[in-house]
């Protein structure tokens, strides 16, 4: 398959659009809070779609439809788990985190929040969490770049290096210029593109298959087991897949969107928009892959993950195909840019400002933020130059690692007054180590997705260590009271 001229034109227009958004956001960015948190002025629609688009990487348009195409309905469990996890995050974490980060002396990053929340003078919480963010997101960013460049290499015969650099330069440019606002506004547009693509493609495929009934019959002719969500599934397997949803509470690039909402009272609106977007997008991905089984029944695809991109090329005219291709790239870019910016904020706020130059001016900090965006992106491109490199295997730890190390710490810090700094620190370390160790061992219970034991052990450690520890100082407890009063509008 080669890229037709209309597809290429649509695609270039998309990339230029992203750069224009970056430039517009540049004009609204004056200080570090603007650069890493948009000065907390996101409306509910932008916050919701930005959280969704940052969360959903290329997996939504490549991995999930691919898994559905290859194995059928039993792959949908992960979407069920993710929807429940995302909802609980919006319901129980979002507003609390928005309010507490402001009460805790206007914390602008997750490490900043943890230090302020526990009055941690040792800086251990801040430094450890910032290092974890920096390391994993650099690898995560790099692996996103590999996914994007490989897609263009495999689908259109484009040179891997060219695809890598073109994508990286566009992302670096708008993130460099406009920071958080640019990332969120581009996420919003990218989220809309992904949403549109995931509504029209499955409808077109089911139509091309001859309708829903004919789709089911054709899938059954290939393999009736693919109609069954329980085929080849044990309770253990289902729980393991659904446990992916536990990851939400600890993903810095997602929860930072909650902190950036203009008014905490906008949260129910943001939640409704975010959940509707996510669930419909997941259904779109599920049914694209599922209907693809029927469409390609005669000539199965070599690589299941190309099911969405192949369908968009064969079913639509080249102009629409260009938009659909931009949607796939949107999914990849919207995740990379958010992770890049969170890493930059960890370097700027949590290392440079906190440890090296507390007296730095806002102007200096914004430029350090921009510099670190370029630096981290270049490291990521450098690591991505060889798509087969094994270091990128570290990404496999990232979702579970963040979920188990930060998730219970964030939830309990927002709900439990008695939690202490030592509890937080111990929980974070136990959560992260559990994920790493669990992944090394195979067989029996160790085949369970490691986030579940990591999450449980992290939470148990926080509770045990906090209760054994001295109760938090009076200042921390009164701040918790102020937070609760603000939360309940008293």
């Amino acid at each position: 398959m080669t890229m037709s001229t209309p597809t290429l034109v649509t695609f270039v227009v998309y990339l230029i659009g992203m750069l224009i958004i970056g430039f517009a956001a540049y004009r609204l960015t004056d200080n570090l809070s603007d650069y890493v948190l948009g000065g907390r002025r996101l409306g509910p629609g932008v916050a919701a779609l930005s959280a969704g688009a940052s969360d959903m990487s290329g997996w939504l348009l490549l991995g999930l439809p691919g898994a559905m195409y290859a194995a059928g309905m039993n792959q949908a469990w992960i979407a069920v788990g993710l929807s429940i996890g995302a909802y609980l995050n919006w319901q129980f974490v979002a507003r609390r985190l928005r309010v507490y980060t402001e009460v805790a002396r206007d914390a602008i990053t997750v490490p900043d929040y943890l230090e302020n929340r526990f009055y941690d003078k040792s800086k251990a919480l801040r430094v450890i969490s910032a290092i974890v963010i920096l390391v994993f997101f650099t690898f995560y960013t790099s692996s996103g770049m590999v996914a994007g460049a490989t897609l263009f290499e495999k689908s259109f015969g484009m040179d891997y290096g060219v695809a890598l650099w073109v994508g990286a330069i566009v992302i670096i440019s708008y993130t460099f210029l406009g920071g958080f606002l640019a990332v969120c506004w581009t996420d919003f547009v990218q989220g809309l593109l992904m949403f549109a693509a995931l509504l029209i493609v499955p409808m077109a495929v089911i139509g091309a298959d001859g309708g829903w009934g004919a789709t089911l019959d054709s899938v059954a002719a290939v393999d009736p087991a693919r109609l069954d969500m329980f085929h080849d599934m044990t309770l253990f397997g289902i729980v393991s897949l659904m446990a992916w949803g536990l990851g939400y509470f600890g993903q810095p690039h997602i929860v930072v969107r909650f902190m950036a909402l203009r008014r905490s009272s906008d949260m129910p609106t943001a939640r409704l928009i975010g959940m509707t977007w996510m669930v419909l997008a997941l259904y779109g991905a599920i049914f694209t892959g599922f209907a693809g089984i029927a469409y390609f029944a005669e000539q199965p695809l070599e690589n299941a993950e190309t099911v969405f991109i192949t369908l968009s090329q064969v079913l639509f005219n080249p102009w629409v195909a260009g938009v659909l291709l931009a949607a796939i790239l949107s999914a990849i870019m919207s995740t990379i840019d958010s992770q890049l910016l969170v890493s930059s904020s960890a370097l700027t706020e949590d290392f440079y400002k906190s440890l090296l130059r507390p007296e730095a001016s806002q102007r200096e900090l914004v430029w350090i933020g921009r510099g670190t965006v370029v630096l981290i992106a270049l490291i990521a491109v450098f690591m991505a130059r060889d798509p087969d490199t094994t270091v990128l295997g570290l990404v496999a730890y990232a979702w579970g690692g963040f979920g188990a190390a930060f998730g219970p710490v964030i939830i309990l810090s927002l709900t439990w007054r008695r939690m202490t700094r030592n509890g937080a620190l111990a929980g974070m370390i136990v959560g992260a180590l559990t994920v790493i160790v669990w992944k090394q061992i195979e067989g029996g219970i160790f085949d369970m997705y490691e986030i579940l034991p990591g999450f449980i052990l992290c939470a148990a450690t926080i509770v045990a260590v906090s209760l054994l520890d001295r109760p938090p100082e009076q200042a921390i407890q009164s701040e918790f009271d102020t937070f609760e009063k603000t939360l309940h509008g008293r």
Partner: protein
Amino acid sequence: MEHSLSFATWFWLLVPMCGVVLLSLLTWLLGK
């Protein structure tokens, strides 16, 4: 149409995912 998805598949495919959207709608309406 000869084949269909089983009740259990429809149930688990629809109830949790549509459920969280409906809950979001409900809490949004109640907050109005």
